[in-house]
């Protein structure tokens, strides 16, 4: 399925919901394992221990995740609006600000420590994202080989006359001769007296030579 992030004011609500869901699922798993392991012997008692701990502690864990996600997204949107750009520094500064804000009631020292931890966590996340993008770009670059594009008429002439695939100038001359042959077949009768004499002279030569007068007459014919 395709998921697109919403623009900035709605993104706060969506990030809050996403963080709460992640906290619920992850917290449920961890608390169930902890309760299962810490319970007395017996399968039924262990299952009940896990379920009880999930019921007791998962909502507060999810709430913490939601508060973190909402604060982070709010600061991120504020930075996007203030700096008018979106890059990795927005996330890193948002992580630091979120850590500092959420530890505000514990004193300045705790604020500084939490801000540093938030900054480092977001820096690692952005670094991992950049590393993955670089690896993908390197993989894509190695696979693609740029081939030179052939002329379209060159491929057509290969099918018509496969023997003349050596050079392109022969194709042009052959095309030109073909056009001239069609023009000679549909000549007007008043030009017949002049051209056969010259055509006899040109038959003796190996390569045909088209005079300017002949071309002018052909152009006037058109």
């Amino acid at each position, binding site marked *: 399925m395709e998921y697109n992030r919403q623009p900035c004011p709605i993104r706060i609500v969506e990030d809050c919901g996403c963080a709460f*869901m992640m906290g619920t699922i992850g917290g449920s798993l961890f608390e169930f394992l902890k309760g299962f392991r810490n319970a007395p012997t017996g399968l039924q008692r262990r299952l009940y221990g896990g379920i009880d701990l999930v019921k007791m502690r998962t909502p507060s864990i999810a709430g913490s995740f939601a508060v973190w996600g909402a604060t982070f997204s709010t600061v991120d949107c504020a930075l996007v609006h203030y700096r008018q750009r979106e890059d990795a520094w927005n996330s890193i500064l948002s992580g630091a600000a979120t850590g500092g804000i959420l530890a505000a009631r514990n004193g300045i020292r705790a604020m500084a420590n939490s801000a540093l931890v938030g900054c480092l966590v977001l820096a690692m996340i952005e670094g991992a994202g950049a590393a993955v993008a670089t690896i993908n770009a390197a993989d894509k670059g190695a696979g693609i080989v740029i081939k030179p594009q052939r002329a379209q008429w060159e491929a057509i002439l290969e099918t018509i006359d496969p023997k003349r695939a050596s050079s392109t100038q022969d194709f042009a001359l052959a095309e030109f001769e073909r056009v001239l042959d069609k023009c000679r077949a549909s000549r007007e009768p008043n030009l017949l007296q002049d051209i056969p004499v010259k055509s006899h002279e040109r038959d003796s030569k190996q390569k045909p030579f088209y005079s300017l007068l002949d071309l002018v007459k052909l152009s006037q014919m058109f």
Partner: protein
Amino acid sequence: MSDNFSRTPYSDGHAATHEEASKPHYTTTTSSFSRTPVSPYLNYDSRYLQQAQPEFIFPEGANKQRGRFELAFSQIGTSVMIGGGIGGLAGVYNGLKVTKALEQKGKVRRTQLLNHIMKQGSGTANTLGTLTVLYSACGVLLQFFRGEDDHINTVIAGSATGLLYKSTAGLRTCAFGGAIGLGISSLYCLYLIAQENSSNSSPKYL
């Protein structure tokens, strides 16, 4: 021959006999054709263009509406924030009442107020958020297994949410929770059906 084209209204072909001989006979294609004046400088009749409905362009393979999984995040976030707001207001009320009864002043009163707001706000937010996570999870699972997304999913997801939330509090309370979930989701679906019948537009399934 009249040259005032902008003032001449479009005739429906019900003119008199002697006017029919002079004017060409037009027949309307749809009943929504209007009598707005026609500009003589246009090569086409622009009234044909007004009959089209608004059209949207969808990418190939994309759904025409958002699925439940995409809506789940918005629902959970909205529930958490609304719960936090309601709990915060209740915390303000309880905090004022308690500090007034204990006759606390200054910093102690401020700290007690903050504690009441935070505890009750986060408690209500977490409760509503957890309920919405259960509802969204049941809805997404039902959509995955049934292959459809309609009102039946909403009702079953609501009932399952109530049953699950009170599942460890005894059979009687569990049934009561399921009934509450069934009632709320049924009312919501009835509201959607009524809105659908009134506005003649496709509903947005939740």
